[in-house]
């Protein structure tokens, strides 16, 4: 079982890689919409990448309103 910190780190790595953003500038408390500047289609892309990476289902309504990486990690932890 991954720890919440491990899950958060993996999300940050994935976000940095796929949105071409410097990893060192991302932290768990970041608002990823603002920090990455992503739109609705990219938000869906992130959701799909997270599902594929962690092998979980993340219903849209469970991540709706979530905007920081740490809370996103808690949602994923609950599905692992």
């Amino acid at each position, binding site marked *: 079982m991954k720890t919440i910190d491990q899950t958060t780190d993996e999300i940050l790595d994935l976000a940095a890689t796929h949105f071409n953003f410097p990893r060192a500038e991302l932290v768990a408390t970041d608002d990823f*919409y603002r920090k990455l500047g*992503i*739109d*609705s*289609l990219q*938000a*869906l*892309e992130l*959701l*799909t*990448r997270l*599902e*594929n990476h962690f092998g979980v*289902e993340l*219903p*849209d*309504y469970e991540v*709706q309103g979530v905007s920081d990486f740490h809370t996103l990690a808690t949602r994923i932890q609950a599905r692992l």
Partner: protein
Amino acid sequence: MDEYKGKTLSWHLADGVVELALNRPPANEIGLAMLDDLERFVAALPALETKASALILHSEQKAGFSAGADLRELYEEAQKMDTSSAAKGVRIFLERIHGVLNRIDTSSLTTIAAVHGVCFGGGFELALVCDLIIADKMARFCFPELRLGLIPGFGGIPRLKRDIGNGVVRDLLLTGRSINATKGLSVGLVSQVAAEGEALRAARSTATQTTKFDRATSAAAKHFIKPLPADELRCEIDIFCDLFTRPAVMEGLRKFVENTGAHPYLP
């Protein structure tokens, strides 16, 4: 007509396979212009069916297969008229799109949707007319219509029920959630999952395989196993049109058109 290039799509026939490419920015929204082009395709289909074995539907838009009905156009057109006239216009549109989709659904060709990215609402319903859905791992399927106070109107509920059962229909319809290709594979919606960007290549490989079989036999098998749920499709149009006249629908459309949020397809 073996080749065509319209405003919103193009098609060509080569080596026994017809490829229909959707290409209307930003995400292949299905409005009047695409409906016109789809009707042209359906008019050409009888001739294509005598020369081909398979049909591939795919998208040339990066965003995905299709984001569904053009809700902005629907809202703007409806704003120009009273409720009764808008409802009549919607019924005419639905009758036309059902005519197109029913014809592709029952084509003698083996039909394959090669899906990437968003495959939502009416776009999902377009994919569902195909015999096979081949999706890349970034594809995402969703029926977001309930947020607008509507049901899917392009035949999606009867077709999904026909193909994989009522439980999956209820899940997608009543929650409005989206699912990825892997989930789609697990419930029988998706036939094959391809790597990112590889759905069209996988669809071409599958289409080539179908060209090896006797056409009449393939067509007979399809006719036997894939009946058109005609009564339910008619019922769907009636329910959609009844719901459409409610003020909540216009309010839902307005919110959607004006929404700039990250999940505009969810309430």
